[in-house]
């Protein structure tokens, strides 16, 4: 009795700052890490407005205003990397959503125990590193030793294809590899939503003689709409970012494919570590960060309008 009173009392009354010292100590390592990893690099953004000179360092290098950006956008690269980043992400959003929703609907209705097996198997690629994925793709597409050239095309009497030299195939390959990798993950999100729907709707519909297809169209899909909208908006918030491993490792950094595999992330990486072109790389990176920031803010605003509980802030 007295304890309950005390609890209520302590909640109302302000606790002394001393009481919170242990909590600040608990928070400290994380705060320090985020400072080092996320805040300390921020001043380095000025590099995008400078002509980098390694001898003078970031701060000693000369200011050049927006000329790095002018130079970046004067090249064809800026167009190509923006087009590829946006184009692939849009394709991923459509393809991944259609497949994940479809598979989730099929799994939700499945009675047999084997559904757990299917679910585990399609989640496996999500846990594999992109380096290993690039090996798997290589086993199929290698020009000399690949399965497709040596077993499939040969038996069909077709000429071998130099896969890593032919840009035309790669949009499809990358979309399929990406789908393969993330399907299991996305599917779980939709499946858990479907399993939370009220079974009563389906029983009522079945009683009225609705077919399976009608139930999916009239009940499942409309109920899923908010989840799909939310996932899509969150993906749009990240539309200026790409999976570096997918676009760098899987095509094996092949120069012949850059026109269809170069994204903002791979461009920034190559600029920095292969070409040593710090300033253009920094400019492209800042372009990505700023547009990405605006997109996250805008999409979150929309999410908050639709469903406050799902918004990030």
């Amino acid at each position, binding site marked *: 009795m007295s*304890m309950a009173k*005390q*609890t209520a009392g302590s*909640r109302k009354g302000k606790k002394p700052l001393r009481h*919170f010292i*242990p*909590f*600040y100590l*608990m928070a400290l390592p*994380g*705060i320090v*890490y985020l400072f080092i990893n*996320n805040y*300390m*690099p921020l001043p*380095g953004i000025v*590099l995008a407005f400078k002509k980098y000179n390694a001898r003078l360092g*970031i701060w000693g290098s000369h200011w050049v205003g927006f000329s790095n950006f002018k130079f970046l956008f004067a090249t064809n690269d800026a167009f190509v990397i923006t087009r590829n980043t946006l184009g692939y992400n849009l394709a991923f959003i459509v393809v991944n959503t259609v497949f994940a929703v479809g*598979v989730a609907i099929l*799994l939700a209705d*499945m*009675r*047999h125990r084997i559904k757990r097996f299917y*679910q*585990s*198997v399609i*989640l*496996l690629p999500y*846990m594999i*590193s*992109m*380096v*290993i994925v690039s*090996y*798997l793709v290589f*086993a199929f597409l290698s020009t*000399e*030793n*690949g*399965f497709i050239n*040596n077993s499939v095309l040969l038996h069909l009497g077709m000429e071998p294809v130099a896969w890593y030299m032919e840009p035309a195939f790669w949009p499809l390959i990358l979309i399929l590899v990406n789908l393969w990798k993330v*399907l299991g993950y996305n599917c*779980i*999100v939709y499946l*858990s939503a479907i399993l939370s729907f009220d079974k009563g709707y389906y029983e009522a519909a079945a009683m009225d003689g609705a*077919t*399976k297809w009608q139930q999916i169209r009239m009940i499942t899909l409309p109920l899923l709409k908010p989840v799909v909208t*939310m996932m899509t908006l*969150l993906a749009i918030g990240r539309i200026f970012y790409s999976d570096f491993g997918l676009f760098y*490792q899987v095509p*094996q950094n092949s120069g012949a494919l850059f026109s269809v595999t170069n994204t903002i992330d791979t461009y920034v990486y190559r600029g920095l*570590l292969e070409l040593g072109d710090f300033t253009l790389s*920094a400019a492209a990176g*800042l372009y990505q*960060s700023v547009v*990405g*920031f605006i997109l996250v803010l805008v999409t979150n605003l929309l999410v908050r309008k639709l469903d406050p509980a*799902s918004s*990030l*802030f």
Partner: protein
Amino acid sequence: MTMLTKEDRIYQCVSHVVMMILSLNVIIPMALLVISSFTDNDTLIRNGYAFFPENLSIYAYQYIFRTGNAVLRAYGVSLLLTAVGTALSLAVTIPLAYALSRPGLPAKRLLTFYVFFTVLFNGSLVPTYMNYTNVIGIKNSFWALLIPGLVTNGFYILLAKSYFSASVPGEILEAAEIDGASACQTFLRIAIPLAKPIVTTVGLFAAIGYWNDWQNGYIYLTKRADLYSIQNLLNRMIQNIQYLSQNVSNIRDADVGLAAIPSVSIRMAMAVVGILPILVLYPFLQSNFAKGITLGGVKG
């Protein structure tokens, strides 16, 4: 009334066919990888990677383990990195999330925003690279594998924070404190056991992140190939198959030289070695991982 109608049966049938195709899409590439790693190298050169090779051989694995101090070393690095990284990640993420979840914490909004801002905006690769290279100075050290980007992130922290707020009853924590438990004891003995699902989830994400990471080594280890993780070694080998034999520091057997390298099969054998821990632990990983994704809900 549980009799299946004809339509239901067709629907179930089609579902199973679709799911089997999708499952085979995962199993077949894995099978090609494993079978190729056990195929005789000359057969591979003649016929390419195939599901039913003429001659099997375990030579690629023998080669790895005979000359493989590079491989074993990289394996050791990966194991150490994953163990240390996961522990570090939990030690940094969970206490911060717990602190942010405590009601009445002064400057809580400011601290939460401090965490949240890192989700919204990042300085991108160049400033981050310059920071770790020139200011922190961890290039070409084990720290370079451990620290950049992987320890924690705003998303994990906020996910764990909302779990503590929503699923760990404040009354229990307050009662413990009134009973004389220190803040630390309350956290370790009461809050963490109650938050086990989120602790497992964050630990699992961190462990997979560390085991699979190749970027840190690729970016920061320019001169220290001896610190390569298994992913870095694999990455190096797909670019340059001779790399392994060049890097063998002490070739003890004269016959295991550059000429004897089973260049085609060893790639796949290395990939199998790299994927093995994930496959072995998969039953444990997948059930917890699935729970974790559901926990993260749409925000995942």
